[in-house]
């Protein structure tokens, strides 16, 4: 409960700060997965026939697939029949017309998370699409965005209101059969965010989605689709939390970004799913497929992620650099403490001419944490003058954690320039002692050194997120040294 968790929070600061459960009436489908469940989900969402068929096709393909095993992560097999694939807060059955109609307990939850949902947040210039379990609850600032012609709404609403856009772009970057978890998501996804920026439009504010898994034994399978039409620009923020539970919960999202000619998409994530306790019990399995398609010339997609949560993080936000002169960027901080595992990185697929990509990855391992960077830079035959710069730095705290780097480079064009730099350092006893000898307490010194290590990535985050990311980092690593 809420107040209890706050007491705990003050007692033991390093405990997971977002580990409260909200008690609300939920409409949850019994655990299990079969075609009927998919039909039920589709029916509940009043979906058109084509989408149901798309789901079923994905499901049938998924049945033929095997769970991939190549990642540097270890976990017990997931029983997909144990998971409930749909959980909606009941009160949204007759959808709220305004914030006043949203279950006050939900709003309270958002307050606790510090999500800007009220009008006052207009000042912050943030529009939020909040996904609570499986259904988008409330989207703010729709009107202001609508004036600019920007569509930003829950995915299920986009299916109803803008079916032509959804149909055109859904699965065009991450095909339904792309991989095991993407296929599962395509079959059962319940909601997510949809965003369309019209031609030559600069989105007037940062767009933001907040995800939270609340109900127990539910999976969260959201789907995000962002289309930036020619000459447009958008910055999108994504944050995630989940309550503390003993069992593991699965989060298998798909994010698709499409940038047409001269368009820019900046996608920032601060991921703080519940990581499990200090013995590795519980926590979220975060198996996510994120891919951006630089479809047009001079297009630009930038991924920035700060991954502090989840028991297991397994994801590779990638860029397909199709358009000539397109640019892909990946800035990542991944932290593993206690028994957390992360296998994350990116794929930069250079297809067009003069395409450029930058990869800056910072892995921090503490406790028994295992942190792997896995990245592919592929220069195809026609990608003349492609450039890539990759920098992977790992920071180890203590002597029971691990850092692993798996870079893959495939260059099929002789004019390509690919640079890779990698460093692994231990958080220096020397560095710590130096700071402490100047009067700085150990925890503060660790915080300072780690933030310095991550600086190149944090500077890519929007201001508010950068502050949150720094705080998260210090909470995650509290007690990691000494």
């Amino acid at each position: 409960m809420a107040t209890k968790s706050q007491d705990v929070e003050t007692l033991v600061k390093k405990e997971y700060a977002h580990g409260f459960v909200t008690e609300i009436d939920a409409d949850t489908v019994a655990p299990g997965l079969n075609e009927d469940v998919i039909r039920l989900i589709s029916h509940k969402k009043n979906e058109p026939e084509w989408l149901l068929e798309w789901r079923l096709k994905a499901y049938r393909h998924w049945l033929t697939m095997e769970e991939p095993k190549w990642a540097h992560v270890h976990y017990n097999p997931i029983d997909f029949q144990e998971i409930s694939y749909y959980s909606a807060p009941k009160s949204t059955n007759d959808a709220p017309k305004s914030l006043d109609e949203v279950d006050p307990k939900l709003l309270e939850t958002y307050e606790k998370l510090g999500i800007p949902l009220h009008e006052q947040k207009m000042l912050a210039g943030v529009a939020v699409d909040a996904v609570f379990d499986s259904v988008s609850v409330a989207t703010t600032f729709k009107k202001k965005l609508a004036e600019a012609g920007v569509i930003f709404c829950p995915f299920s609403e986009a299916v109803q209101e803008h079916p032509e856009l959804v149909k055109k772009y859904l699965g065009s970057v991450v095909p339904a059969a792309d991989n095991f978890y993407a296929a599962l998501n395509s079959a059962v996804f319940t909601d997510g965010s949809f965003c369309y920026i019209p031609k030559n439009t600069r989105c007037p504010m940062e767009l933001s989605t907040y995800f939270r898994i609340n109900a127990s034994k539910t999976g969260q399978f959201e789907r995000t689709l962002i289309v930036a039409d020619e000459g447009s620009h958008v910055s999108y923020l994504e944050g995630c939390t989940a309550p503390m539970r003993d069992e593991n919960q699965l989060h298998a999202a798909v994010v698709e970004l499409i940038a047409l000619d001269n368009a820019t998409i900046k996608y920032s994530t601060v991921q703080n799913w519940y990581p499990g306790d200090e013995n590795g019990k519980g926590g979220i399995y975060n198996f996510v497929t994120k891919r951006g398609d630089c479809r047009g010339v001079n297009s630009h997609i930038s991924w920035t992620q700060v991954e502090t949560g989840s028991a297991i993080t397994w994801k590779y936000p990638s860029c397909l650099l199709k358009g000539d002169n397109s640019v892909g960027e990946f800035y990542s901080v991944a932290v593993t403490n206690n028994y957390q595992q992360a296998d994350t990185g990116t794929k930069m697929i250079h297809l067009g001419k003069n395409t450029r990509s930058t990869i800056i990855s910072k892995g921090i391992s503490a406790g028994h944490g295992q942190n792997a960077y896995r990245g592919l830079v592929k220069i195809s035959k026609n990608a003349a003058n492609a450039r890539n710069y990759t920098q992977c730095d790992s920071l180890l705290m203590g002597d029971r954690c691990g850092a692993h780097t798996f870079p893959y480079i495939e260059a099929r064009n002789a004019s390509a320039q690919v640079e890779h730099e990698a460093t692994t350092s231990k958080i220096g006893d020397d560095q710590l002692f130096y700071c402490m000898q100047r009067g700085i307490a150990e925890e503060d010194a660790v915080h300072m050194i780690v933030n310095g290590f991550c600086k190149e990535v944090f500077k890519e985050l929007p201001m508010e997120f950068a502050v949150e990311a720094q705080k998260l980092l210090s909470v995650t690593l509290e007690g990691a040294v000494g």
Partner: protein
Amino acid sequence: MLEIKNLHVTIDGKMILKGLDLKVNAGEVHAIMGPNGSGKSTLANVLAGRDGYVVTDGTITYQGKNLVEMAPEVRACEGIFLAFQYPVEIPGVNNIYMLKAAMNAIRAYRGEPPLDAVEFLNLIKEKVKLVNLKEELLNRSVNEGFSGGEKKRNEIFQMAVLEPKLAILDETDSGLDIDALKTVAEGVNSLRHHDRAIIIVTHYQRLLNYIVPDQVHVLSDGKIIKSGHRELALQLEEKGYEWVKQEAAAA
């Protein structure tokens, strides 16, 4: 201010200091000299509270308090400053940001309010002149890409800002050319003060040409075997350490 009695210190089980005695009063400058491996840097590190240096016997009393029991950051807040022999690089951490954090940690320990940005910058501007540190280095990452001389100047600059009561300079002269040595020495001299003590750990006496010590001690095999005045340093330069060792052995 500082009184060390019969100090025994081990590192990885190996005895390095074997019954060291030293007394330093406020306002004094002491030079600790000795051949390589005599325990000079061990003394500097044990005073600063570095991990891995185990005091197995003896006492260190600093301003009437038992220093051995204090955490390193508490020692710093109590006014002990170590100018490192090898200042470390901390990538991504701004040089003056760290110094400000240090300053305000020490002020908080003393119950003083933190300095605001303007007050701090004024202080920095004043002190940076003392050691002739290039201003561009202030906003770089701590010691990252600094030359050997710049690192040592940065140490003395930090000392000037933090105004310690007891400063320990560990081989501050090593790796400095003569101009840098003079500048650093001038910086240190300007910090000589009647309620501040300075311990200079050095292998060579040349720094003592510019910072004239009140006392010189010869450290050999973990003990101070001879103490004297400035002339002792000159004798050491002329004759080496061997004769002191023999004299001590004979006694």
